[in-house]
């Protein structure tokens, strides 16, 4: 899976929707940044999921 595909999969699992273009871009950028800071792609993915699960969109009903 490409980073974009991983971001899309995470959005679908957490929010039941696909990310728009800017969300895809910012998610992929985050993965790249975290891979450097956390040392592995796996840890970066964990950070992405951690933040999606802590976000207001996940926690609050619209």
């Amino acid at each position, binding site marked *: 899976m490409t980073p974009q595909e991983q971001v899309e999969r995470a959005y679908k699992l957490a929010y039941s929707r696909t990310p728009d273009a800017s969300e895809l871009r*910012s998610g992929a950028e*985050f993965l790249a940044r*975290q891979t450097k*800071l*956390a040392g592995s792609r796996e840890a970066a993915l964990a950070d992405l999921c951690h933040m999606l699960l802590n*976000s*207001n969109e996940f926690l609050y009903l619209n």
Partner: protein
Amino acid sequence: MLHQLNHHWRVRTRREFFTQAGSGLAGMALASLLSEQEAAAAPTQKDALATRQGHHASKAKSVIWLFMEGGPSHIDLFDPKPKLNELHGQPMPASFGKPITAMGTAGNTLMGSPRKWAQHGQSGLWVSDWYPHIANHVDDIAVLRSCWANGLNHVGSVCQMNTGDILAGRPSMGAWLTYGLGSANRNLPTFVILLDDREPVGGPKNWSSGFLPAVYQGTQFRQGDTPILHLSSPKGVSTERQRSKLDFLKELNQRWAADKQEDTELEARIQSYELAYKMQADAPEAVDLSREPAATREIYGLNDPDLAAFGTNCLLARRLVERGVRFVELYCGSGSGWDAHSNIEANHSKWCRVSDKPIAGLLTDLKQRGMLADTLVVWGGEFGRTPFNEKGNGRDHNPWGFTMWFAGGGVKGGRTVGTTDEIGLRAVEKPSHVHDIHASILHLLGLDHIRLTYLHNGRAERPTIVGGNLIPELWS
């Protein structure tokens, strides 16, 4: 004024339309009444916690509220009643009427105070032998003997003492103060709650922001050795990695909140993540009491296991105020500890001992550090107790006349203000309602309770609802 109300926003939802419509109409009315200057204490929408000037110059910068939850007996602590002792064992004279009490005890016989009373300090203020350490500080204390409130039960009364109303839902005084003055230290919460036992009756509604934006709600610390959890990052998570995660989270949350501006909880959650991150810098040091010298720990009673829980909170309160926290509310006997319906002797002996030395230690410490001049210390419960007995050796709830005291922050000590009747049942001279007390506390902190308003449902709400008269005898 008008530009702050933003009533020309483009409206995207039905809910937003009604919010805007309400503030728009009230806004026009308000703008004609208020000048820009009068709106000085209203926060801008951009930064809800920015430091703001009050309405007038003030000595007090912070409040430490010592809340004796459950209702301490004023007639056994600060308001001696020789006539009550004379009438001990007799029914209450008919001239007092028959008040409706929580437990229906007004037909019971009067019960004198078995305490030994003495005058203390230069001022000669009366304090009973239940408070020997606090008695040494009377020259710094103004004792308000004529408090009164509306609630008969604990939930309503604790709620009113915090929010002005016996029904939950309004902002607590700590929230109003944070709204009025903003934060003085962005690395710590501005309004902190400390408990020494169970949860106070009514729970977190007592430190709620009510209809004010949620960012102004109080922050409850934990009891024991770790007041705040998770102050350091997990092993292996660098500051840069954590900051990067929080930046991403903030972006997610801001994107989602963009069309939901009326929901202040969303902004409060963004702010609370930011505060949590910043607290990692300052909070570990602020809550580390091991840095305090042995002599200081001793005066707060930390070496006595019975006093350690409340004493720790008193010391913590000083450290927080020292670092810019504006409002610390410490419950003593949290969960209605002081509620002595029976055996007041055992109940109050316990809670007076628990609170006496730590509070005296706090006053000594604040004074030695020059902090008493700008820290307002408030002592009191949600009501007092009745002159007639309950179950032979206890006292019922008394909201018609009770004592609170104030020290520091511009208060003139060594005086009593107001009186109760000869048996301590009702406030007689200078009756001071909870709204009057709230208005006076806000005044001492530089805020005018009438001009401190927040537009809610088209109405300019204020901390004292439609009441509140200042009690200048406390400071002039």
